C-alpha cells in the first residue's frame, strides 16, 4: 500500500483525533463509497484526491475497522493535492 502523507503537519496526533469526514452525496460519506467499492469490485486501485490537511493514516485506520481487513488492495493510492 502506498500512502502519501503531508509531512508538514506538526500536530498530526491532535489532528488525527478530530473526526474528519468527506461527503459524496447528501448522506453518503466517502467511507461508505470505499466500503461499497471494496465489497463489489475488488481488486481495484483507488486514487483519492484529498485536502492537504486530511490525515490519511487516521482515515485508513478507521477504514480498516469497518472492513475488518487491511484495505490494501482497495485503497492503494492517495493524493493530497487540494488546498
Amino acid at each position, binding site marked *: 500500500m502506498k500512502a502519501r502523507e503531508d509531512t508538514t503537519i506538526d500536530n498530526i496526533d491532535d489532528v488525527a483525533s478530530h473526526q474528519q469526514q468527506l461527503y459524496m452525496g447528501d448522506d453518503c460519506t466517502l467511507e461508505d463509497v470505499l466500503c461499497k467499492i471494496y465489497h*463489489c469490485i475488488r481488486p481495484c486501485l483507488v*486514487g483519492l484526491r484529498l485536502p492537504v490537511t486530511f490525515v490519511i493514516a487516521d482515515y485508513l485506520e478507521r477504514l480498516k475497522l469497518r472492513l475488518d481487513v487491511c484495505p490494501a488492495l482497495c485503497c492503494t*493510492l492517495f493524493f493530497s493535492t487540494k488546498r
Partner: protein
Amino acid sequence: MTSSAARRIPKNSQQIATSYLLELLSTEIARDGGASLVTNLKDYTSSKGISPKRLNSLLVEAIQKPRLMAFLEAHDIVFDVDRTVEPHWVKLKCTEHVDWASLEPNKQTAVESQLSKLQDKILCTLRHRYSRMERRRTRQRQRQQQQQQTKEGDTFESPTTNVVDGGANIGWLLRQCTWNFHEYLRAAGIYLDRIYPTNGQCSNGDMFEPVLIPGTKPWEDLVLGEFSCLLLQMVTHYDCLVVDAEQTKIWFQEEENDPLLVDDSKTIHNDLEYLSLLDDTLTELVHQDGATQVRLEVLLHRHQKMKRLLGGRDLWDLVQRSRKCSSNATTTAYFERLDIFQDGPDIVLQLKNKNFSSGRMRVDNEGLFSVANGKWGTAIARAMVNCCYQVGWARKHKKSDHDKTTTTSLQHDITAIDLTASVGGMTLGLAKTRFFSRVIGIEIDPHRANLCRENMANHMVWEYNNDYIDIRTMDAMDAIPYLPRQSCLVIDPPGEERTSRRRQITTE
C-alpha cells in the same frame, strides 16, 4: 575521508543548525512579547527569507526530522510548548539565545510596509461593509416601493428610507484585521515597548508569562487602545473615515473621487485609470483561468491581486454604473470584453469569445475551482498508471537491447473510472494517457455530465466517438456494483462547503 572525520562533520553541522534555529526562533518569539503560536513561527521564518524547504532541511540537520514541534519540545529549557490549546502555543522560558539587537525597530521600511497593509485591510473591510449596507438599503427601498404600489395602486409616492448606518464597532473591525494588526505590532516593536513593556527589561525566565494569544478576547481588550489610536491617526489622512472614540464606532463616508459613488451625470475623470486597470486585470484573470466562466467569489479566493485591487468595492455596482455611463456615450465603455451577470447571490464572469480549440474547458458557474486542471489531471493520471505497474497489472516492454526506450502496449484490460467526473478535468487526463482500455466518467448532475460530454467531444474527438470514453449520468453509489473489476478508480470528493452549498440549493 576517515570514518571519524565523517562522524565529526555531521555533529558540527548539527550544532550549527541547532544554535542558528535557537537564535532565530527565540528572537521571533521575543518579538511577539515572549510567546507565539507554533503555526505562526513558520510564517515568521519565511518573512526572514528562510523558505519552508530550508527550514525543514535545518530541522533535519538539527534533530534528523522535519518537525518544528519536535525541535521545540527537544529544547524544553528554552521553549515551553503548550499542546493543550489548539493551535499550539509556545512560550520562551529563557532569553539566552535572543538577539536583542535585531529586535530594535530600526527598519522603517518594514514598519511602513506592515502599516500600509494594515491600513489597506481596514479600508477594504470598511468599504466592503459600506457596499453591503448600500445593497441592503437598495433592497429595502425596493421592497418599500413594492409595498407602496400594492397599497395605493397607480398613485405612487416615493417612500422615505429609514435604514440608518450606526457605524462599525471598532472591536469588530479589530477582529477583522487581527493578523495584520499583530504583524504591525511586531514590526513596530510595540509589543515590547508598550503592550508587554516589562518583557524587554527583565532577564529572568518568568518575564514572558502575561503574553496573550492574538485573536482571543483578552488580547483584543489589551490592544484595543492601540488600535483606536491608530484609527484616530488614520482619520487625519483619510477623509472618508469618521471615528467616534467614545462610542467606539467608525464610519466610512462617501469618497468624492470614488467611482462607485459619483453621480451618473458627472464624468468619472479621477478614476478612469482605476476602472481601466480593473477591467484589464479582470479580463486577464478570467482568460488565465482556462475555462469559459468563473464565479467572482472563486476568482477573488484564488487571486489575492484581484482582491487587493477591488479593495472591498462592489463590482456589480461598478459594472452597472459603467454601463449607464457608456450608454450616455460620455465615457469609454468598460467591462465589455466579459459577460458579467448575477446568478442568485453569485456574480459570474463569462468569456465572450469562447474558443474551445485553445484547450479551454466548458465549466459550470464554479469555474475551474472544482475541476482538476490540465496539470493536475495529467499528474494524477500518471500516478495511477505508475501504480498499475507497481501492483503488476501492466508491464513495460523493451523493444530490443539496442533500443532501450520502454513502450507500453495495451496487453492488459484495465478500465479507468472517474467516480466524480464533474466536467471532466480528471477524466480527460486519464483518457490522454492512452494507457487504459476504456475510460468511464460518472457524474450525478445532468448539467455537468453534459458539459463533460461536450468537453470530451471537443478535446478527444476520436476517442469519444469510438466509445473509448463513456460518460454516465448516475449516482456513484448506484453505479459501483455494475463497474468492471480490476479497474482504476479516481475519486475527487467534494469538500464540506461545496456539499453543504449544494444541499442548500437543493432545499431552496
